[in-house]
């Protein structure tokens, strides 16, 4: 078999294995926590109504959380993993093996996809007991949701890789991904309608993927009447595809160069330096 094809297959194998390792580890407390938090939010919102709609606020929030969770995971997950893997030597190991980098990147992508999927189910499944948004969505709705989530993931995944490449430590990678994400989530109409925000903040939110992933997920699952509560009072599918698409295209154009440069610079001495820095950090 061709060495590169073999490396891609091994990458898939790596992704599945690492996902399985993660399933049996303390990582899952994070999922338990998000699941409970989401459920709590939905519980308190189940009877709140949204202006101009006969749906509960919870019915808006559940799809929004799915979209938001996807872009969040696609940015923060790879950034954290990449920077950790640079520090612990996984990346250098990949570099020392023929076509190891191909295997590594495929593995990371597969694992991020599986992680996102499990994170999605953790929110969706308990959420459905409170607000059954899937009941009226139909097959079209579910397919639409999958398309939106896939696009949302593509819009942020390369940026996660870039963040993991340009930062010096896992802490740094978390800083430049987590903090902006938190801010965006707060202004992007995920937990309450964006119409409650001042106009300039609405403008800022609409430049970034969080708002559009939430918007797209709502468009896929909610009845058309719910569009009345959106900005402009309609589902803006083209705009959503446009903004998420631009982020994805620019990201995928930029990421390979930055990844390559980072990988080329990776060496044992660099790793040892980072290790020493990590050991010196006051805990």
């Amino acid at each position, binding site marked *: 078999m061709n*060495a590169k094809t073999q*490396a891609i297959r091994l990458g898939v194998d790596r992704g599945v*294995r690492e996902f399985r390792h*993660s399933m049996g580890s303390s990582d899952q407390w994070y999922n338990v926590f998000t699941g409970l938090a989401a459920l709590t939010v939905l519980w308190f919102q189940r009877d709140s109504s949204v202006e101009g709609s006969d749906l509960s606020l919870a019915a808006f929030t559940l799809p929004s959380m799915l979209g938001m969770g996807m872009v969040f995971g696609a940015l923060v997950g790879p950034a954290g993993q990449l920077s950790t893997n640079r520090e*612990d*030597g996984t990346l250098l*190991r990949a570099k020392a*093996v023929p076509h190891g980098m191909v295997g590594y990147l495929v593995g990371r992508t597969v694992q991020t996809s599986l992680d996102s999927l499990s994170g999605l189910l953790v929110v969706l499944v308990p959420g459905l007991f409170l607000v059954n948004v899937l009941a009226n969505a139909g097959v079209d709705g579910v397919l639409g949701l999958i398309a939106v989530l896939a696009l949302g993931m593509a819009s942020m995944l390369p940026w996660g890789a870039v963040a993991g490449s340009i930062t010096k430590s896992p802490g740094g990678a978390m800083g430049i991904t987590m903090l902006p994400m938190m801010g965006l989530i707060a202004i992007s109409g995920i937990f309450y309608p964006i119409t409650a925000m001042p106009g300039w903040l609405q403008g800022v939110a609409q430049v970034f993927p969080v708002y559009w992933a939430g918007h797209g997920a709502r468009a896929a699952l909610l009845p058309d009447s719910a569009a009345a509560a959106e900005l402009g009072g309609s589902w803006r599918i083209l705009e959503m595809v446009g903004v998420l698409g631009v982020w994805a295209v620019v990201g995928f154009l930029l990421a390979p160069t930055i990844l390559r440069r980072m990988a080329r610079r990776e060496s044992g001495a660099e790793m040892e330096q980072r290790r020493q820095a990590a050991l010196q950090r006051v805990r």
Partner: protein
Amino acid sequence: MVIEVRDLRMRYGTTDVLHGVDFTAGPGEVVALLGPNGAGKTTTIEILEGFRLPSDGHVRVLGVDPATGDEAWRARLGVVLQSWRDHGRWKVRELLHHLGRYYTSYSTSHQPRPFDTDELIETVGLTEHAHKKISSLSGGQRRRLDVAIGIVGKPDLLFLDEPTAGFDPHARRDFHDLVHRLSDLEGMTILLTTHDLAEAEKLADRILVLAGGRIIADGSPEQLSRQVEGKSEVRWTHDGSRHVHTADDATAFVRDLFRQHATGISELEVRRSTLEDTYMALVQRHESGQTSEEEVALR
């Protein structure tokens, strides 16, 4: 030649780390790169591995410039670095088997690749830990796994950077046996770095002493010892004051000493200098910035 290095230079910013390193290594040779911390051992080995671009110089590894080495070239190298803590959640056998499969495409009838996973685990003495999580291994076990991963693709050339750092004496002995077996049975060329002279002496066919960014001595352990043989240190007390002298021929020197002072000599000591003394002297002289006449003499 498996490794060819001519006038290798490396500069970080305005600091020169390597100023003109020259050496070669032939097929099946075990070469130790010996030197104090910060001498440039790791930099040299990383340039050969293709992980770092040199500032200047001619480098060929398996006939290829590491800067342009492709994946087929990489498949013929084994790399063991100093500090690896990766894949903590994988099990020993799982990871070794997984990484070995990257080499199946490079297998030839002449050189089947990779090693059989279970055989290799036995070779490095990890059989009873094969199904343990890597994060639960001790430092020495972890290191042996690193070596196993380094050789899983049956490399023609193996790089070992400080392979026994943190080993207890027993693990060190086992490791030395392993290196001998690899070079004898598999015909692997091995380049290892160490700052432990005894280790270099035990393992290597040839020792290169790297200090201050230059190779200051190059030869077999025997050759290096012979360079210093005869040099002895003579200490004595004469009329209450202590004297030390390094002599080429200690016997003649002492005979002379007694001829000059028939009485009054006491506490006479004659000590043959060891390879370690030479090494320390070499490195010290070099670090204090003295000229290179002696290095030339040593070569």
